[in-house]
């Protein structure tokens, strides 16, 4: 019954990519935050987050994306989000975060 979240990542010569699937809410947020922040800290490239299998995100999860972007920008990097579903895109639009992230 609990939310489930799976995060996989690839940091190669070509790309730094994170694939997130499942739900990011108050239950899964801590785990996601630790993994994402660690990935941002360890990588030296711009980061792409693939959200094609991300079913749900709440404000806690959006806050984690913002925190990760702030971390990346400390070293002049960027985070882009790709394949965002309509229901999640709507949240980015409402909160104005669509102007902060590169969404493709």
């Amino acid at each position: 019954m609990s939310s489930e979240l799976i995060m996989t990542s690839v940091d190669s010569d070509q790309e730094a990519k994170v694939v997130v699937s499942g739900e990011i809410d108050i239950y899964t947020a801590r785990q996601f935050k630790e993994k994402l922040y660690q990935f941002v800290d360890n990588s030296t490239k711009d980061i792409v987050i693939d959200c094609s299998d991300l079913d749900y995100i709440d404000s806690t999860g959006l806050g984690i994306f913002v925190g990760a972007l702030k971390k990346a920008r400390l070293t002049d990097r960027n985070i882009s989000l790709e394949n965002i579903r309509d229901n999640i895109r709507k949240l980015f639009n409402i909160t104005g975060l669509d102007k902060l992230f590169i969404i493709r």
Partner: protein
Amino acid sequence: MESRDKIVVKLPCKPEYVSVARLTVSGVASRIGFDIDTVEDIKVAVSEVCSRIISVAGSSEKQYEIWFDISAKKLTISFSAKIERINCIFEDDEDGLGAAIINAFMDEVEYCPEGKDYILSMTKNFEVISCNGL
């Protein structure tokens, strides 16, 4: 407007049960006829409130209740919790993202009710489709 049906759900102040609240609200909103996009909106709004209650509760031993009040024209969802020092649960919300989402998705939100037995109440109206000219 006279209430038609009432549904009450009582949950522990634990993050792992917020998904239960989402499933419940989806079932209720869908059952009473909201379209799939609106069901999703209401679900997101309810989840934001539940998360906030858990964040400010300070103890996972506490419980909160979600009241679904169904009438012919609207769905009103109220939250109650016996948590000390809480009148406005979104007052200290730093980024304001949760309240922004709730405001966008619900038609009316009562954030800081005084003298009520709930700590937040929000309403979604059924869309009225005009048949003028048909």
